[in-house]
């Protein structure tokens, strides 16, 4: 049986997402089965568009989706988006892979995505507002079943 790795991607920060996808793509390239469980802020990484409003959302959920978008901040030196802009620019200049590049490779290497239904419920996110690559919408038990079989489990 193949070795397995799981990651809980709780953070919606650009730098942490890059770290998570660097490990995910490398593990998948090393013949491991990789599952990423996206929860809370991590769901921002999966949003199809910057703003994910829907008629079903209440006022607070709309506020939340206005303030927390797919335009990801960085952990330190964010400066209202100036930090991520500089970081992306530097990464491009040094020919480092972008988050989009890494996510495309993750798909090519069959990394599995699970989106947390509880977080989706709280934030008023529909399935349609998230990327089609999300293979499963599930909760803690589904994650733990995968994690129990995995040798590497990370919380990022």
């Amino acid at each position, binding site marked *: 049986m193949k*070795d397995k790795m799981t990651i809980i991607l709780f953070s919606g920060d650009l730098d942490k997402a890059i770290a998570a996808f*660097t*490990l995910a*793509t*490398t*593990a998948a*390239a*090393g*013949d*491991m089965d990789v599952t990423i469980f996206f929860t809370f802020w991590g769901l921002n990484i999966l949003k199809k568009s910057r703003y994910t409003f829907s008629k079903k959302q209440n006022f607070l959920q709309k506020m939340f989706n206005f303030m927390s978008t797919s335009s990801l901040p960085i952990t330190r030196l964010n400066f209202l988006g100036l930090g991520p802009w500089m970081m992306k620019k530097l990464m491009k200049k*040094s*020919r*480092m*892979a972008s988050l989009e590049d*890494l996510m495309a*490779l993750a798909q*090519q*290497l069959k990394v599995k995505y699970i989106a947390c239904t509880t977080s989706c419920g709280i934030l008023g996110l529909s399935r349609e507002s998230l990327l089609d690559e999300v293979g499963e919408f599930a909760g803690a038990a589904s994650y733990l079943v995968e994690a129990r079989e995995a040798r590497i489990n990370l919380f990022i």
Partner: protein
Amino acid sequence: MKADRTLDCIGLFCPMPIVKTRIEMDNMNPGEVLEILADDPGFENDLPAWCKMSGAKFLGIEKEGNVLKGYVMKS
């Protein structure tokens, strides 16, 4: 060392040289040798480490200035 294919990863950083190596190896036949050119210094340790994970055979690394030439055989 003689190789069946060469993969140019000059200027690329982790995880790209390893991920590209994997994708290239998927299109090769068992017994064929891949040469990978890289200048990320981490590649020197990462290539043998990746071989341990993937089961590919690590044949060695040669250095030419800043350029690392890695050799792996598909098993």
